[in-house]
Structures are given as C-alpha cells and as structure tokens.
C-alpha cells in the first residue's frame, strides 16, 4: 500500500487519467459472466454537476458474478462548501465531512484500481456526469467511462413485459423489492452501491446465460 502511494505521488495528476484511458475495456462481445463490474454510488449536495458537490463515494466490485466485499469502499469527501439542506437526504453533516478525504485522493484510488472495469450505477447518467466533472477539476481532464445503468435496464425489462412503468417503480428500493432482494435501510453510498450490485446480479440472471456486454450497453441506453 505504501509503495503504491509513493508511486502515485510521483505520477503527475493527468497521468492517472491517461493510464485509466489506456487500459482497454472488455470487448463488447464478452459474456457478462466474465466481465468485471464496479457498482458505485455518489451522495451529492444537489443535482447540478456544475454547481453541486460529491459528499461521499461508495463502491463494490462484481467479479465472475460475485460481489467481492473485501474490496468494498466507502469514503466521505471533505467538501469545499456546506452540505446545507442536502443533509436531509444523505444524513451527512459538515462536521463529519471535515474529517473526510480529499476528492482527488479518492478519485486516484478509483481510477488506479478499477481501470478496465465497467461501472454500474442506478441512474448512472448523474453519477457519470459528476465523476467526469470531478476528474476535470482534480486532474485537468476526464477519461471516458463505460457505464451501465441498472435503472434503465429495469425500465427496458418492465417495458418488454408490457407493463406501464410509473416513475416511482424505477427507484432503487422499488427495484430491490420487485427482485425480492434485501431492502436497504438508509441512503448511504456503499449500501446503495451494494444494492445496485445485487440488482445487477439479479438482472444478469434474468437475462439468461447468453448475454454479452453489448446487450447491457444497449439496455442501458
């Protein structure tokens, strides 16, 4: 760990992004069973990526259709501004975040350890935008991420069954309930990332064993 950290110090900030970008993603013909995923979730001060900030990040990898808890991570980010009213949603207050990590430090770990992983989030568009802007701020540029979206996949699945999909039905707790998965207790970046990973596992099984990564990309559009 220490040596990794020393190495990181020496690399210039933009190089972290370059390295991430240089690592190839799995081919889109890769069977989903062989794909490495990283389920992640961000807690935010608001919904505008230009104005709002990340207050915490949680992630957990899925390798060979198994969630690897030993690599689960959860970080609080010391925010440059007050979390203000958003504390109502994520339950994190300024005094907790004061002891949090630097955003650049956390992003460095994410980009270094999970290059080549396909990222998974529930309503991934928001997370992707925030991650990109955060990278631009920290490293001067943002890499191209590959995201799949458990919410869109659920929406497609329900549409195919000919169901009328109400907006509420796509929220993570409703999806977990529909898939008979353990319900989550509260908003917490790691808990949400874990729940998202569970939902992904269930969706992968329902998709049958012939699914490839490109099918997931299609369903996430």
């Amino acid at each position: 760990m220490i040596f990794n950290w020393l190495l990181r110090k020496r690399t210039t900030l933009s190089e972290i992004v370059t390295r991430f970008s240089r690592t190839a993603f799995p081919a889109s013909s890769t069977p989903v069973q062989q794909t490495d995923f990283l389920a992640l979730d961000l807690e935010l001060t608001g919904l505008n990526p230009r104005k709002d900030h990340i207050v915490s990040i949680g992630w957990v990898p899925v390798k060979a259709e198994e969630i690897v808890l030993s690599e689960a991570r959860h970080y609080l980010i010391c925010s440059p501004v007050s979390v203000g009213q958003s504390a109502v949603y994520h339950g994190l207050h300024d005094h907790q975040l004061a002891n949090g990590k630097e955003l650049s430090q956390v992003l460095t770990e994410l980009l270094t350890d999970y290059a080549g992983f396909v990222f998974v989030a529930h309503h991934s568009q928001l997370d992707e935008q925030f991650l990109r802007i955060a990278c631009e701020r920290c490293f001067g540029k943002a890499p191209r991420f590959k995201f799949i979206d458990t919410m869109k996949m659920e929406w497609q699945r329900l549409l195919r069954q000919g169901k009328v999909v109400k907006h509420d039905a796509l929220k993570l707790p409703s999806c977990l309930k529909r898939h008979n998965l353990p319900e989550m207790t509260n908003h917490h970046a790691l808990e949400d990332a874990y729940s998202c990973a569970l939902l992904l596992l269930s969706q992968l099984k329902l998709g049958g064993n012939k699914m490839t990564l490109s099918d997931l990309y299609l369903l996430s559009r």
Partner: protein
Amino acid sequence: MEVADVTQFLAQTTPFDQLNSMELAQLSAHIKVCYCQAREKVSVQPERLMIIRTGIFSLYSDQQQLLTKLQSGDFYGYQQLLTGLTDNDTLVCDEDALLYYLNAEAFHRCRYQYKNIDIFFQRLFSRRLHQYQERQQGRFTLKISDIVQQRKVTIRPEQTVQDAARQMSDSRVSSLLVEEQDKLVGIVTDRDLRHRVLAHALTASTQVGQIMTRQPHVIDRHAFLYEAVQQMSQYNIHHLPVMEQGVCYGMLSATDIMRSQQDHPVYLIGEIHRQASIDGLERCSQQLPALAITLHKQQVPAHEAGHVITTITDALTQRLIYLAQQQLGEAPCVFSWLAFGSQARMDQSLNADQDNALLLEKEPSGAVADYFCALADFVCQGLARCGIPLCPGNIMATNPELRLSLKGWSGRFARWIATPTPEALLKASIFFDLRVIDGSKGLFNALQQDILQRTSEAPLFLYHLAQAALQRTAPLGLFKNFILEQDGKHKKGLDLKKRGISLLTDLARVYALSAGINDVNTRRRLQQLATQGVIDSKDSQNIIDAFDLLAQLRWEKHLQDLQQGHDVTNLLDPMDVSGLARHQLKDGFAVINEAQSRLKHRFCRDM
C-alpha cells in the same frame, strides 16, 4: 468497509451472533455474495462455506434422493471443510436466492478463534448425519401390485360349470373371472361349484352365468394389501378381482395373501421345527435370501436382522440335533451344544460360517465318544447343506478337540487365561464369545461362570487380549483418507468386518471379560459396560453408533451382493455409497481409533 446488510444478517445468524460488531465486520470482509435463480443447479465449489441469505435450496444425494431443504440462515459446504472430502450431492435452487460465500481460510480461522463456532459446525455435521439416517426410515407396506401377477384365468358366462371345473383344475386355481366381451361380469369359485351346483343337484351342463357371483367386490391394483384383507374379512369372501383403470387385471385370493407373509421369520422358524429330514431343512433355509430382502425392505435395522438370521441358524441347529437323535438314539449323557463367534453374539451375517462345539457331562470315551462324533457330524454336515459353510479353521463340534467335558473345557480356558501368548489368543479370542444353543443350560452356565471368574482377575491375560484386539486398526490414513485393501479376487475396498466390526467386537470383549459380564452380544456388552460404569456412557453410545453404522453398511452391501447374484463379501468400495455415508464412515472409523487408544491406555499401560 462493511456493508450493513451483510453484517446485520450475520449478527442475527447462529453461530455468528456471538461475535461483536468489529469481529463481524472483519468476517464480512471475507464474504462474496452471489445470486441464484430458481431451478438453477448450484455448482458447489469446494473449500467455501455457503451461507444462505434468502431463498430455498434442495439438496439431493448422488442417487437423486432429496436429503434436505436449506433456507435462510442454513449452511452448506462445512462438511467438506471439516472432513476434506468432496461428495456428489447436488444443490438445486427452488426459490431465487442470495448466497454468501466464506472462503476456507476465513472459516477455519473463525473456528480456531471461537471455540463455540467450531462446536456449532461440528454438531451441525453430526446432526446432518442423523437427518440422513432418519430419512431412510419409512413404513414399508405391501401393495396388491407387489404380490399379484398379471394372470387372468377367465371363462364366459354361457360356458358350463363342467367347463369351469376343468378350467380350474387345469390352471390349478380355485376361482375364475367371468368375462363377457372383455368386461368382468362375475366370479365363480370352487366353493360355488360345491354349494350352488352339487348341493342343489344341478347338472354339469348348467351355465356358469346362472351360478356365478354377479358384481363381485373388486380392488384396485394399487391399493395396499391390508385394504384387501380388510375387505375380505368384512364381506367374508376369499377372492377379489384386481382392477386397473376399470380393466380386470387378475385375481387376489386369501391364499395369495397368506403366501406373501410366508417369508416372515416366525413362519420360517415354525416351518423349520416341523421338518422331518435334512432335505426339508435345506428347502427351508433356501428361503433365507428372500427373507433377508424382505427384512431389508421393511427397514429392519442391521442388528435386528442379524438377530433374526441367528435365530434361524439356532432353529436349524436345534432341529438337526433332534433329527440326529431320532437316528442315533438318546444321548448317552448330558451335553450342551455351544456356538462361538457371531452366532454366539447373535449378530450373524449372511456369509457367516460355522463355529460350534460340544460340552459334555463327562469325558467321552468308547461308545459315548462315538455317539457324539456321529451327532456332531450329522449336525455340522446338515448345517453345511443348509448354507452355513463348514469352518475353515475347524472350529466345529466335528473336531474331537472341541468335544470336551466341563473339566476339559475349563482346563483349556484356564491355560489361555493363566499363560497367555499373543499368537494363541489371536486364535482363541473367538472362544470367549460362547452361547448354548441346545442341550443342558446348567452345564453351560457352570462353564461360563468358571471362565468369567478367571478372566476378571487376570491382568496379564487382559493385556494380551487387548494387544490382540489392537493388532488391526481402522482403515483411516494420516490425512483422514480411506486406506483401501485388496481382497484376492475382488476389487479394492474397505473390509467392513476385519477393519471395522471385528475391531469393536474385540474391544467390547476385553472390557466385558474384565468386568465379568456374561452377555456376549456386542451391543448389550457395551450397554452393560456403561450401566456398570466400566466405560463412559457417552463413549459407549458412540461405539454402539459406530458399530450399528458399520453393521448397517455391511448388511446393505450383503443384500446388494445377494440381489446382484454376487458372492456376499465384506469389501465395500467407498465410492459406492453416498457422500454423507462416506462422512459417517470416517466418523465411525475415528470412533474406533479413539476407543482403541482408550483400550490401550486401560489395559496395556502397566505392563
């Protein structure tokens, strides 16, 4: 970094509920989570503990028998983790499920660190073995289809009663099905011919339709036999047409039912005592394989089956002694016919040979000696004809050295006990399990008391007897693997007798002789030893369990050999039994190892 959902679940799941939150967080970090869909066959990867978070699974043995259902909070894989053995069970998901996998390293660390968790999984393991045993219990009930053959002897209603009588005697049946255009319209029995034709002086040309029983009671082919018995006694009838989906299939008579019960041991023993010749006894003994299979079907445990088989050997012996005396005349003096070994212990198996002797009131000489020589010859040759082979070691009453007076026997036992040599004891230990089969019980009791008095005060003898009992060990290797052995013409396997049952029999004998217990049955010896406090009651129960297990496996192996027409042998290929039975077997052998080391400690320490 803990996921609350995982740690919260573990905190509510025995045995992990005794860990504090920090320990739980550490444990949960080693977990991998996986999702299973209903109907999915889970490939159980070895070296991981499976913890079921949600959903339901069915566990099947390699013979596709449902062993158990697993649900939230249940575990799987600890069997392999504890024993290092893989088995061929299959796990099928019944209901969408979430699984946690704990890797072997974390599992073992957890066991070593927390004694209670270790104990929990050890207990779970032994309880699973019991579940496995209970599952096999089930009431065996004969069905009509088990005893009625598809054989229809029919007649048309317009045929004459004379035709009917001829048909019955030609086909050797006591009743006919009367059918019109393949439909059952009635039955006619030999009793009807008597009561409704002859008694009323009707002519031989009377039509069957006039005298038959119309719309007879019928029974479905798939009904239980007792339902037929019940109908017959309710309506006082002796014949029931058997139907299958509205079509007549055959006839069930009261005689058929009686015949189906003929392989009951009580029936066979009664029959043995009615025989007037060796030929007759030989015919009776030929029913033994069928009886064994029936006992097995009725789920009679092996030790009880051994008891039944011994009782039949006893009956054959007693009847042969009676027949011999019919031929040779009354015995010239009081005698006891003794059995040694498994017959004495009442745990005879299907491949047991003879071990017997004569105890006489006085030292035989002249005519008396000739008489008992002839008697022994008659009985032993008779037993051989009844399928109980002559003893290759010549431990039989035909051997003049084994036809002794009380004084002669007492002297022989005294020599074994006072100046024991290991080689002599190895051969002689079988003589210390003895029981009287026929003749004078008083004479026998005198001998047994004499022996027990000597053995209980002879530490040197017990030392050598224990040494002899420890000569062979259970076939478990250093890493708890089975040590297979080759038996002449047969393939490799575990000798359930030599490397299992006999070890426990020998062990129980040493203790019993030291404590002056006159019972010779191994199970009863162990029970008495526990009652008298000679051995710990828990140890005694463990040994009995191991003994029962080995006896059961041997009994099943013998029946399998019998049904497949092979020679009956004690050599079991561990791959032929289910995974759980293999685990049990290892446990059983481990019990033997422990018991042997305690025996050594008790009897061989001071020498």
